[in-house]
């Protein structure tokens, strides 16, 4: 126990002090401070990648004590969580963005998973179901406790998660983007529930980028930007404008290489592109998108997480996402067939994924094999690979994109995020595309590597390629694009020349678009 504890105000339930968390290559949090009072709804806002989720993972013990610096004081006790179990034990429960429910188990089974009412390992189902009934009533969910999770909608699943949290005698409830995948109606219901809990004296932390929601329920707002706490606003100061300024208020200095755009004719054009969800066939994910890219132009697509940008890009690229895809794509004015990835590659279109580890790289193979994978024909004759040609291609791209590795035989799994990204880029550059779609090209990589990626993008544009950049980091889009489309909930909600775009303008387009769709 520390002496400092005595100085805490009696009503402060949680105090996080000088939290610093470093990942290889990235400083995710630096000296973040957060103070939450008993019985309030405390919102944490910030751009994607600002460090909100990381902070909550530190708090809930996902990153155990010792892997970060700083201290956590909960109800007057300094805490050293070794895992989620420790934090839940003292009443901190987090509900993650991706729900952690087992689809083929019932509501009851999910709520008491790992925490069943049992005697000597024999489960008392009656007791469990009775408690479940009571919990479901509390959260206002009218479902049979025996219903399987897979048979209820996302909104109801979210409520089950909350009921599960309540079953653990929660003192501090943390919700990470709880309404990201909910409809307007479900979101409202959820927010009402939060207010109801507040009346009963529960403390909650709400992480959200939907400012209208924050505005509605929060007592305080803490703004995080670039892994730092910017400020904590009391209720009376909470306005959307104030928060937006605080969220994005950083100067655009020379973090972007200079460019002299030479923009030519339209190369690539998409008309009326619509896509439905691959599993929930009735859900339209992409709604009649029209877009074009010119020769030598860098076109940005802005939007928040879940806006459908990745889904759009992947559905274009060989129908790698979604069903019932309709719409037209043309290259140089001629309609082209992109129905498979190999056809897309043949038509000289490349897509650099946002998730390089899952979709971009073979992590158990080395740089050389990864670089040539999308264009093996370029290093082989009649199916036989020319080892020397492959070697010189790999070394060539290693130099061009400045991949830092001991040799091209280094496994990509052992590279830093920035260098992995350069390998994925090299792979697609070697495929010689005319249109390059870059999805979050700088996610999770440090400032120096970001600059290198921007330089590559600038060089490609100067070579006359058409480039689409999808990014959640608005300063980045403003820094490198010539024109920006704003996407929200599967639609294009704005288009602006980068010269008259600003972060506020983009954010406003998004916020205005919010709620319109559903």
């Amino acid at each position, binding site marked *: 126990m520390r002496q400092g504890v005595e100085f805490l105000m009696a009503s402060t339930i949680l105090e996080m002090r000088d939290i610093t968390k470093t990942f290889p290559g990235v400083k995710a949090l630096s000296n973040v401070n957060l103070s939450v009072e008993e019985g309030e709804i405390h919102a944490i806002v910030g751009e994607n990648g600002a460090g909100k989720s990381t902070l909550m993972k530190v708090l809930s013990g996902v990153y155990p004590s010792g892997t970060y610096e700083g201290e956590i004081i909960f109800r007057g006790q300094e805490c050293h969580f070794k895992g989620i179990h420790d934090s839940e034990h003292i009443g901190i429960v987090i509900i993650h963005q991706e729900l952690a429910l087992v689809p083929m188990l019932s509501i009851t089974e999910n709520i008491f998973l790992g925490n069943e009412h049992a005697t000597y390992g024999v489960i008392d189902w009656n007791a469990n179901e009775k408690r479940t009934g009571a919990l479901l009533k509390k959260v206002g969910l009218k479902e049979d406790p025996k219903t399987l999770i897979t048979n209820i909608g996302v909104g109801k699943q979210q409520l089950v998660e909350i009921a599960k949290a309540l079953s653990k005698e929660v003192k501090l409830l943390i919700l990470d983007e709880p309404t990201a995948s909910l409809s307007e109606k479900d979101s409202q219901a959820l927010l009402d529930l939060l207010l109801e809990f507040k009346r009963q004296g529960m403390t909650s932390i709400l992480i959200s980028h939907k400012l209208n929601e924050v505005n509605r329920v929060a007592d305080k707002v803490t703004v995080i930007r670039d892994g730092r706490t910017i400020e904590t606003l009391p209720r009376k100061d909470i306005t959307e404008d104030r928060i937006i300024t605080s969220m994005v208020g950083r100067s655009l200095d020379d973090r972007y290489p200079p460019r002299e755009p030479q923009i030519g004719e339209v190369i690539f054009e998409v008309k009326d592109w619509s896509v439905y969800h691959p599993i929930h066939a009735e859900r339209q994910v992409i709604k009649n998108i029209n877009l074009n890219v010119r020769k030598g132009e860098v076109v940005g697509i802005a939007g928040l997480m879940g806006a459908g940008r990745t889904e759009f890009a992947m559905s274009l690229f060989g129908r790698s996402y979604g069903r019932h895809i309709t719409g037209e794509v043309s290259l140089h004015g001629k309609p082209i067939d992109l129905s498979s990835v190999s056809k897309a590659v043949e038509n000289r279109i490349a897509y650099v994924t946002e998730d390089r580890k899952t979709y971009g790289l*073979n992590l158990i193979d080395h740089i050389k094999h990864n670089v040539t994978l999308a264009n093996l024909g370029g290093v082989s004759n009649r199916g036989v690979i020319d080892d020397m040609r492959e070697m010189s291609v790999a070394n060539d791209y290693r130099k061009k994109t400045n991949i830092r590795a001991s040799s091209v035989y280094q496994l990509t799994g052992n590279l830093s995020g920035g260098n992995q990204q350069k390998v994925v880029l090299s792979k697609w550059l070697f495929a010689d595309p005319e249109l390059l779609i870059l999805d979050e090209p700088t996610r999770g990589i440090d400032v120096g590597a970001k600059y290198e990626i921007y330089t590559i993008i600038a060089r490609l544009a100067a070579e006359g390629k058409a480039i689409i950049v999808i990014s959640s980091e608005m300063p980045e889009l403003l820094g490198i694009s010539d024109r920006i489309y704003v996407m929200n909930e599967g639609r294009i909600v704005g288009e602006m020349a980068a010269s008259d775009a600003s972060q506020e303008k983009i954010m406003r387009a998004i916020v205005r678009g919010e709620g319109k769709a559903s």
Partner: protein
Amino acid sequence: MSTESAPAPQSSVAEDVQPGRRIAVSALTTNLREYGLIIALIVIMLFFQYTTSGTLFKPVNLSNLVQQNSFIIVMALGMLLVIVSGHIDLSVGSVAGFIGALAAMMMVIWPLGIFSNPLVVSIVCLIVGALIGAAQGYWIAYHRIPSFIVTLAGMLIFRGICQALLGGGSSVGPLPDSFKALSSGFIPDVIGPLTLIPPTVNAAGKTIVGSGLTLHMTTVVLGVVAVLAYAYFGLRARRKRERHGYEAEPFPLFVVKTLVGSALALFLVFQFASYKGLPVVLMVMGVLISLFVFVTKRMTIGRRIYAMGGNAKAAQLSGINTERLTLLVFINMGVLSALGGLIIAARLGQAVPAAGLGSELDVIAAVFIGGASAMGGVGQVIGAVVGGFIMGVMNNGMSIMGVNVDWQQVVKGLVLLGAVIFDVYNKNKA
């Protein structure tokens, strides 16, 4: 930023100080698994050579060893690709049994006239194997039914058909000699034998079997040519690398490796030559092994299989048709299972209901002992072949020693487990 650039200075320092040594060490460590495995095989062989009082390396026993295990190794070539692509095939033993039965029925029972010719029958059987592989691969590739389930079903189905075809518990034979030559035959000596030491003649004027030393000269010539080719191509690849300015493994290491490899090969060739020459099935195996090494190491299709096993989604998003590739991998497995079935039938001289029973487990074990990963994406043809020989030598050695079959299984199980634990331990250490 500092972490981003960390690897570069480290390696460049090492390069400046002792480039030769660094390359040697990296060449050794990267191939440690492969060398380790071959060394393990040699150690195991020497062990049994000692415990069987020198029987293991006797020419006649070496021929037996090859003939007994060839079908395992042939099927392991296909299984390697299946496992590298992230799947498994449990049906290979049953498919082999079924194909053996089909071949026997076609050659012995059914009145097919000209079509009961062993060559025609063999070709038909390989095609049937391809169709079986395609049928199973179709469900796995295009309907995403787990390969474990599809091939488990195949295992039951084809064992059943095999037994039904043979009419219950009976066996069908004898098979024509020209067919049996696939397994028990030796390559003809077109050059003619060379007698180095005339056989001892006993009092009755008859030669004593096994005395003297007569060499099968075709075998010797083939062996020497193969060894020279091995050294020549190794040297040429080295030169090519150096000409392009890339580091090759240090010359002394290359020389030692080539000499040791050649010596071992020549020793085996000599042993075979002093008996009846090279078994036909060894030639078949040799051709197939070379082909699969080439396909996996040098051809785009091989590269694509590894990429698919390493990360199927990334492979797909790189324009690789993973469905078709999976189908091809299973068709290939079907053809090799069929070939395995023909080899078994040819060795037994008849088709029996239990042919190939349980051999899928030996085949899978060979691939895993050879260092393949159950997660896919990792595994070498040579590894699987050596793994197959390790299993074979243990079978053979323990049988000569008179170890009970029950305990043989225990030992084989322990070796499999040990090999994989060794792999996992190495990986965690690195």
